[in-house]
Every structure is written in structure tokens, then in C-alpha cells.
């Protein structure tokens, strides 16, 4: 009988362990740049080739490594940062596990050149596949230069899961941006294929750095946040309610200068914005939390992206209250008014009806059967009370015109969002936004295959982007041109929009661009060109489609029905949410216990 259980060789064990630390080029960048910061560098340069999938170089002017210690540096759990287990509860440096260099070295070729400022000569070391190939004295400038090549070459399984070069590059940049946000005293410079893509000069303080990194749009719309309570100090900036993003990627949270993701704290931030910004929109925020190292466990995961708070409830409350406080006392004069959520003019629902609409807003976006039943029954209940007023305020309804869709007759609009139709077999609700989104999406798809009309702008609009976003964006400029969105790269951190697709009504360029970028950034796997195009079209369609809480006139409903009937795939919106929900007579009869 052969042995079923064998002890793994050191090489395999290292590779497995490396898997936790080195997932992709961005993780290598993170470990190396953190090491450079821990080494007290004042100037860090990062050079990426092919988005970091071919080679990564990190060059700093920090303290360097002693010749004697170089060999140790490549050994697992060799660290200069802690001495005993208790120390990890006192760590103030970014790294401490002693896993970074050996892990990287086990899955790539690492070339290290280092010299302490006080030494005359430096050291050159080459490690490949976890084996030290060379350690020799060498001349070099003070500090450490690490060049990593053959990345993940001996782990084909992982290499296969890398995304496109531009996505990997943007992930690398994300990592550097996060570190740059907390270290204003350090100069950062990133080049990709020899071209400078990110450069942050030394900043006099953290807010200057934030303004530089997050861009002018954010700093124009930022509110400062500050609190100090029970050993937790919170500071930073959050966006005003009118500045929103379509995902939570612009929420940066730092605990003791370390970027982390924490669902609890994110929830706390979002809950402060609840009811202030539209559902499914997210604020931007840069928050720093200083908390005694004893009250937070950073040793949860090798990538140190997660932490555990001793009292997570208290942290949640502090964040939520502080952010809400800042939002509440914002000066409204400087455009901080929440006009997006302001109810539209001209709505003449009776007060009773409007009250119900507010209640129904709670489950806008949730499509569980129960909620809908509630909404329907509320609608029907209130209908009897407003019998003298037609459900729809739209002008022209009540003419002889009959609006029908699939032989269902249009009754009216509910909650400014859903169109109600009744027919022989029951009734149905159409989500006007989802329906219009699908129509526009199909039209855009059609027009991208044919000639397209593009409205030039009288005042070209400059939209600022972060370097990572710009990297994602630059890949699809040609396609945008094809669908009539003429965009040019404008310097290192902005694009200028020169023309919009004529099919879209007047939409704001800034929002279109940020939606496209968010949509691109959300990709979970390598996506081909077609998929990327569809994402862009979906973003455009969503932005241009008629919004919820918008009263439609009879003519608009009629046009919508006609277009919807002709549109393929009209059961769902491009994001997959339903457009139409049906209620059969028998279902309704069951609700009333008639059956």
C-alpha cells in the first residue's frame, strides 16, 4: 500500500503559502511598497511592465538592508519588525509577518539591490523559485531596488486567472493610491511601459494629498469629518450628497494608516447616507481611524485587508454618527442642496396617495413577491380614497386615446415609477426606468453596429479621473468614438468630452464618464471586448433612461409602450432586473381569500 499522506516538500508548501499573499501583481506591489514605506523611504518609484504581469520594480531611498541580513530576508517568517508574538498587538509598521519577500520569491524571480546609506557598498541578490541563486556585493545607490519578473510563471493555475493588462494595472494603481493617501510625506511615482501614469509630489499634509489623489471633483464636494471618542480617533472627508458614485470603490477606510475593507464600517458610512442619496448610489469617502493597536486585530488575513475590532458596535456607531453629523451641518449655500431627491414639480397626487408613495419607496428596488403584494394592496386601498382624481397626473390622459401594451390597457402610473396595466388575465406593473433602459440599450446596440449620430459640444467638458480609472478608460476610447461619444485623454488625470451620442438626451458628461468607469472597474473576470462594450452601453442607457419618481405624460407612456413592444429581450433591463411583473386574476383572488 502506498502512503496516502505525505509531507509536502518545502517548495510546494511555500507556493501554497504564497497563494495567500501573492494573488496577483497588485499584491506584489502592495507588499513591496509597504516594505519601502516601513524602511522610511521618502521617495518611492514603481515601474510596471504589461500592467505588472511582466515585471514590477519598486525603487526606494529607504534604510536598505545590511549585507549580512539579505539572505535572511528571503526566509519565511524573517522580519525586522516584531520579536515576540505579543509584539503583533503593538505593531505600528505595515508589515510584520515576514512572509512578503519569501512568498514573492517562491512564485517569481526577484532581483534585489540594496545599500544602507551608511555602508560603502551594497548587495545584489537574485532569488528564483524560492532558491537563492546569487548574493554578492554590488555598487548601488542608497535604498532598496527590487525587480520582480517571471511573475507567477511557476503557478500557471493562478496566472491563468489574471485579468487583462489594463485591469491588472488599474488594480496595481489602486494599491498605490491607497498607500499614497495615507503617506503625504512620501513622493510616489508610477510608470507603466516607461510612461508616467501616476505621480504624487510630497504634500504638506494629508488633506493636500487627498485633494491631489482624489481629484478636484471630490475636493470640491468634500465635507470634513472628525471625532475622538473612547480611544478611537476618526478623521477624513466624505462627499456631499450630490456627489455620488455607482459603486463603493471610492470609499477608502484606513485603520492605523492601513487600508482595510470592513463591511461593518462601510455599512456605518452608507447608513449615514441612507435616504439622502438615491438607492444604489454610493458616496466617496476617505476616512482615517486611529485606534489603539490593542483594540484591533490586524492579523486576520495575510493580505491584512481585514481587521477585527474589539468593540465593532462602538466603532460602527461612532462612524455612522460622525458622518451623519457632518452631512447634517453641511452648508447648503455652496450647492449642497439635495435637489436630486426633490419631488418633481407638477405632481398632483392627493396627499393620501403621496403618503403611500413614500412608504413604497422603502422597497423600491426589492422585488420580492411579498413586497409587491404589499405595494399593490396599498395602491388598491388608496385608490378608493382618491377615486375622484385619476391616478395619473399626466396631461392628456382621459382623452379618448387608449394606451395598450400586449392587449393590456394602461390605467395609470403608481409611485411615479410603475406603470399599471390591466387585461383579461390580471394586471401587470412595468418599471418605467427598467423598460426605458432596455429600449435605449437595444437602440444603442443597434446604432453601434451602424452609422451613429453624435452631437458635438459647444463647451467641451473636462472630467477628472484617478490614474487607475484613466488606465481602464484609455482602452475603450475607440469604441466610445464608434457609439458617438468623442473623448480624448487630457493630461494625466482627466479626459475631455467633445461630443455625446445624439440618441441620449441632455445628460451630464461627468456622470456618464464616471458610470462607465465604475462599470468597467466592476468586472469580475477577464471580459472580452464585446462584454466590455455591452457594459458601457448599459451604463449609458441607465444614465439616459427616465428615472423613477418621474411623472410621465400619456404621450410618453404611449411611446414607451410602442418602443417596448418592439424591443427584444424586454422582460429584463440590461442589468438583469425585471421590467414587467404580472399578477394573474387567480393570484389576486387568492390574496382576497376568494379561493
Amino acid at each position: 500500500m502506498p502512503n496516502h499522506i505525505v509531507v509536502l516538500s518545502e517548495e510546494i508548501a511555500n507556493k501554497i503559502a504564497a497563494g495567500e499573499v501573492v494573488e496577483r501583481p497588485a499584491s506584489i506591489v502592495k507588499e513591496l511598497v509597504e516594505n519601502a514605506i516601513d524602511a522610511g523611504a521618502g521617495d518611492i518609484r514603481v515601474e510596471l511592465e504589461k500592467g505588472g504581469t511582466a515585471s514590477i520594480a519598486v525603487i526606494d531611498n529607504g534604510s536598505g538592508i545590511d549585507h549580512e541580513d539579505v539572505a535572511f530576508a528571503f526566509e519565511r517568517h524573517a522580519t525586522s519588525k516584531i520579536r515576540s508574538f505579543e509584539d503583533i498587538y503593538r505593531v505600528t509598521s505595515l508589515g510584520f509577518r515576514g512572509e512578503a519577500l519569501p512568498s514573492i520569491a517562491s512564485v517569481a524571480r526577484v532581483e534585489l539591490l540594496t545599500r544602507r546609506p551608511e555602508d560603502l557598498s551594497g548587495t545584489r541578490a537574485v532569488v528564483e523559485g524560492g532558491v537563492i541563486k546569487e548574493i554578492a556585493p554590488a555598487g548601488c545607490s542608497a535604498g532598496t531596488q527590487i525587480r520582480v519578473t517571471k511573475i507567477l510563471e511557476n503557478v500557471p493555475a493562478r496566472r491563468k486567472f489574471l485579468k487583462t493588462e489594463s485591469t491588472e494595472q488599474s488594480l496595481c494603481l489602486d494599491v498605490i493610491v491607497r498607500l499614497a493617501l495615507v503617506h503625504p510625506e512620501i513622493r510616489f511615482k508610477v510608470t507603466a511601459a516607461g510612461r508616467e501614469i501616476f505621480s504624487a509630489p510630497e504634500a504638506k499634509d494629508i488633506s493636500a494629498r487627498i485633494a491631489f489623489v482624489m481629484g478636484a471633483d471630490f475636493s470640491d464636494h468634500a465635507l470634513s469629518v472628525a471625532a475622538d471618542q473612547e480611544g478611537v480617533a476618526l478623521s477624513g472627508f466624505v462627499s456631499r450628497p450630490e456627489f455620488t458614485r455607482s459603486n463603493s470603490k471610492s470609499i477608502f477606510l484606513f485603520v492605523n494608516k492601513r487600508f482595510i475593507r470592513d463591511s461593518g464600517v462601510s455599512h456605518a458610512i452608507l447608513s449615514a447616507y441612507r435616504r439622502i442619496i438615491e438607492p444604489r448610489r454610493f458616496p466617496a469617502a476617505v476616512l482615517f481611524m486611529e485606534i489603539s493597536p490593542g483594540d484591533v486585530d490586524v492579523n486576520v488575513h495575510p493580505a491584512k485587508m481585514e481587521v477585527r475590532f474589539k468593540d465593532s458596535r462602538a466603532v460602527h456607531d461612532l462612524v455612522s454618527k460622525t458622518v451623519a453629523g457632518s452631512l447634517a451641518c453641511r452648508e447648503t449655500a455652496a450647492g449642497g442642496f439635495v435637489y436630486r431627491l426633490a419631488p418633481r414639480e407638477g405632481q398632483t397626487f392627493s396627499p393620501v396617495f403621496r403618503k403611500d408613495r413614500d412608504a413604497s419607496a422603502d422597497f423600491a428596488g426589492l422585488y420580492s413577491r411579498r413586497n409587491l403584494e404589499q405595494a399593490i394592496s396599498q395602491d388598491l386601498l388608496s385608490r378608493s380614497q382618491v377615486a375622484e382624481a385619476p391616478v395619473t397626473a399626466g396631461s392628456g390622459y382621459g382623452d379618448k386615446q387608449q394606451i395598450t401594451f400586449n392587449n393590456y390597457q394602461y390605467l395609470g402610473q403608481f409611485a411615479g415609477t410603475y406603470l399599471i396595466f390591466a387585461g383579461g388575465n390580471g394586471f401587470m406593473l412595468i418599471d418605467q426606468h427598467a423598460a426605458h433602459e432596455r429600449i435605449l440599450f437595444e437602440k444603442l446596440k443597434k446604432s453601434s453596429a451602424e452609422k451613429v449620430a453624435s452631437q458635438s459640444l459647444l463647451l467641451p467638458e473636462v472630467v477628472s479621473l484617478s490614474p487607475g480609472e484613466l488606465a481602464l478608460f484609455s482602452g475603450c476610447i475607440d469604441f466610445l468614438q464608434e457609439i458617438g461619444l468623442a473623448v480624448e485623454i487630457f493630461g494625466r488625470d482627466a479626459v475631455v468630452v467633445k461630443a455625446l451620442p445624439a440618441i441620449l438626451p441632455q445628460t451630464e458628461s461627468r456622470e456618464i464618464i464616471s458610470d462607465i468607469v465604475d462599470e468597467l472597474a466592476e468586472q469580475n473576470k477577464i471580459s472580452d471586448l464585446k462584454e466590455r462594450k455591452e457594459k458601457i452601453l448599459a451604463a449609458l442607457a441607465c444614465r439616459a433612461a427616465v428615472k423613477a419618481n418621474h411623472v410621465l405624460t400619456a404621450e410618453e407612456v404611449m411611446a414607451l409602450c410602442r418602443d417596448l413592444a418592439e424591443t427584444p429581450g424586454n422582460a429584463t433591463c440590461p442589468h438583469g432586473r425585471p421590467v414587467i411583473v404580472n399578477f394573474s386574476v387567480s393570484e389576486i383572488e387568492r390574496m382576497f381569500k376568494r379561493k
Partner: protein
Amino acid sequence: MEIKINRNTFLDGIQKTLGIVEKKTTMPILNNILLTGEVGKLKIVATDREISLISYYDAEVAEKGEITLSAKKLYEMVREIQGEVINFTKINNIVKISCQRAVYKIPGLPADDFPSISDDSDVKFYNISGSVIKDLITKTSFAMATDEMRKNLNGVLLEDGSDGNNCFFRMVATDGHRLALAKGEASEIFQEITKGVIVPRKGLMEIKKIIDENENVGIGMHKNMLILRTENTVLKVSLVDADYPDYKRVIPAEKGIGVVLEKEPFLHALKRMNVVSSERYSGVILSFSTGKMTLNSTNLDVGEAMEEIDIKYSGDDLDVGFNVNYLIDAISVINGDSILFEVGQGLKPSVIKPADNDNFLCIIMPLKI
């Protein structure tokens, strides 16, 4: 408080406030108008805190006093009253409105709670004719942006455009796709607005509605408000606190190819093109060739429209696409029979203006089809 007032005068006065009073508000008193009996006059005040209207009407005031009442209800009541003279009396906070044998009683809110309207006693007023103001608004307001996010474009720029010889006002509106600019005569230099102010959409529409063409209007600035004063009315509009884009930069320095067109035939041809262009975007291609212009609009779902117009043109053949509605908007507001169309080549902007004067121009960006 006891007043006798002519029914039609009263109805007219209340009606003018309906556009201003808030329909939905957390401050119920803003749904109301303030009525004050003064010597020989009834003063009616309406405000939504951005726009305020103060107007005076002749009335027999037997006893002075003041009260606020719901503008909408009061309007509906007075509208249904038959007869010439309305008696208006207030006892405590209940107002009795009677005419012939009909009597309404309506509870009001005390006048002290009504927001105070800032004083304008030391404002310098400049004279302008009502027709000039209305003309400026008509000629520019169509080009304002409709999306609420861009506050600065969701209104018009009003500035003093006087040069050494003539005094005039300039009004500019743009939505980023086109820009309309109109000039109107003034009597003297309006010092306070030489840098320009932005009048918001709602305020602009109220001005257009309330100012009468035959009136002489005094116009002045007070803090961040534009004040328009006629014999019986004062309208105060809060201005948008934002920067207006530098519109002068947008006006093309080099002129396009100038074509003189007859207004009505061109306008009607465009309207015929508009029938086939799609609802969401409305493209028309203008093709210029020797002696004629061809208009063409194609929509895959509907069909095609084509029309030829004889013009004086002798240059190279030229094709330009436009949003047909932008052309219609610009041409409709031109007075006079002929227009000058300066067609930009490539993707350069085109300019439409009256053939015989410089009082209006509309810059339109082309549609790349």
C-alpha cells in the same frame, strides 16, 4: 380689516401669485399669500423665498389690517364668485369674503409668521421697456439647459453690454449644445451687472409672465437679487450663485460660409423634416450645392423626408448635420423675413442670425451623422 375690491382686479392679482407660491412645502405659510389693506390699496405679497412678488391694487379700505390666506383656495373661491365688488373682512384670523348673497369663510394664518421681504428703498433703478425684457427672454430661454444638476446653465446670463456709443443689455443662454445671445436697448449703463448675473429658470418665467409689454420697467440689483419694478408691482428674483461659462470664447472667430435664407420656407421645411426624425434625436442633413439647399432626414423606423430649397449659393458642395429642433428653435424667434446662416465646416459651430441686424445670434454645434 375691511376692504371692498373689484372682483376681476382681485382675481387677476391672485392669479399672478399662483406660479410663485410653493405647492409642496414644509412651511405651510409659503402656500399662502399676504394680504395687507393700506390706504386706498390692497397689497398682495407672495414668496417662495427665491422669488417674491409684491403688487398693489386699488381698493376701498375701510379698516387697515393684514392676514395670510391659501393662494390656491382663495383663487378658487374668487373665481366662482359672480358679481362686481367683493367685500373682504377679517375677524380674528377668520376672513369673510362675500359678494351679493354668497359668503365664504376661510381661516388664515397670522401675518407675523410670513417671511419678511427684504427692503429695497436704496436701490438704484434703471429704465427698460417691458417689450425689450420679454423679447430678450423669448430669444434666449429655449437654449437653457434642462438638467437640474448644472445650476449655472439652468438659467440665463444677464449682463450690461454697453460699449462706448450705445447702452444695451445682453442675455445669453446655453445648454452645451447651442448658445443663444440677444441684445436689447437700454437707457444707461447698468453698473451693477457689468460682470453679468445668472437669472434662474423659474425667476425668468415669472418675469416673462408678470411684466407687461407696454410697461416701463425699473430694473435694479439688491444684494443677490434682481428687482423689477413697475407702477404697481415689484418682483424680486434671487440669482444663481455660480460662474457662467465664458460664452465669448465660444463665439466663432472665423465666420462660416454665409447663406441668406428666407425664414418661413426654411422653417416649414424643417418642420416637415421633424416629422420623420426620431423622438429622441432629430437629425437633418443640409446639403449645399450651387443654387440650392437639400434637406434630408432619415429614420430607419419611420422613413425618409427630402426637400429642396432654391438659394443663392455658389461655393463648394457642403454637407452638415444638425439637430432639427435646434434649428427650429433658433429660427422661430427671429423677427424679420430673412436670416443669415453662417455654416461651419467640419465639426465647427454654425451661427444663425437675422440678416439685417446684430441683435440676436444662435450658435449651434453640428450633429455628426
